[in-house]
């Protein structure tokens, strides 16, 4: 069980990135690589990485530049504890992106994955934009499909003489009220989202 996260850099200058890691994390590439699972397979070399950092319980290794993505490998000493790996990955993500911000290196498209045997975990950052998009998608049925369906049903019921106009207008009123309720609910959710959901530097994982 290991983790990896990546962020796209607007301008990826390898020298600047390595200097930043040296400045902020001391860059213990040799000792970090020696502690990692990669050391035992022999297939990955230290030269495949440009920076590394380790504590007693965890480590990260930064892969050499490939395209415009900065890719970071994360490993924890306890290979069985998924929550520990998630927390460690998020902590390193927060620290590394703060380092990028301080060095004025623009980054975007953060993504993370945890490699479990036969079950990949994908992580995404829950931004305000994603939160609002999620709410609108969840409420789509109540906001758009149900009102249109109700109006159409009332119209057809009158047209085919199933209901008289009074009965149909009562149904229509109910539909309008429930639509209004849905819109007010949406407004409250949007306000909560705008006030309380911050742009956290944290991955939310889903299987």
């Amino acid at each position: 069980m290991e983790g990896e996260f990546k962020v796209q850099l607007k301008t990826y200058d390898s020298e600047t990135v390595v200097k930043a890691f040296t400045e902020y994390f001391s860059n213990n590439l040799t000792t970090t690589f020696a502690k990692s699972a990669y050391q035992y397979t022999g297939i990955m070399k230290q030269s495949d990485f440009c920076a590394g950092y380790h504590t007693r319980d965890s480590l990260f290794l930064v892969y050499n530049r490939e395209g415009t993505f900065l890719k970071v490998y994360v490993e924890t000493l306890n290979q069985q504890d998924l929550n520990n790996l998630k927390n460690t990955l998020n902590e390193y993500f927060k620290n590394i992106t703060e380092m990028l911000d301080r060095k004025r290196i623009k980054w975007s498209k953060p993504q993370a994955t945890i490699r479990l045997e036969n079950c990949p975990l994908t992580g995404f950052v829950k931004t305000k934009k994603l939160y609002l998009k999620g709410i609108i998608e969840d409420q789509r049925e109540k906001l758009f499909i149900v009102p249109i369906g109700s109006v159409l049903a009332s119209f057809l019921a009158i047209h085919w003489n199933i209901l008289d106009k009074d009965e149909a207008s009562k149904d229509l009123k109910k539909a309008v009220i429930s639509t209004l309720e849905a819109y007010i609910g949406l407004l409250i959710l949007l306000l909560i989202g705008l006030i309380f959901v911050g742009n956290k530097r944290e991955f939310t994982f889903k299987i």
Partner: protein
Amino acid sequence: MEQLGKLHGVEIRKAPVADYGVDLLVVEPNSGKRIAIECKSAGDYGELPISTILPIARLVKNDPNQQVILVSFSSVSDLLSTKLKELNVPSLTKPTVKQVVDQVQLALSA
């Protein structure tokens, strides 16, 4: 090991989970040649994490006479692709069934 069927006289078996998670094992009964097929997907991440090389390297080291083929449903980065080549593990990205069968036949005839 559960036998799934035969293809062109070659047995196809579903490997047990304990066997390093090999998804499919193709066995040629006459020569005893084994082809292990590993299927991987990284979901929304889009590309296989480079650490995918770890279980594959273990698989190759565990049985050097067994040919391993990687079937990926996500893209494979250049670094991972290079490392797979070093291990002599062919990788197929989002292949058709025919492409997998062709690769297995190629490995069996090698």
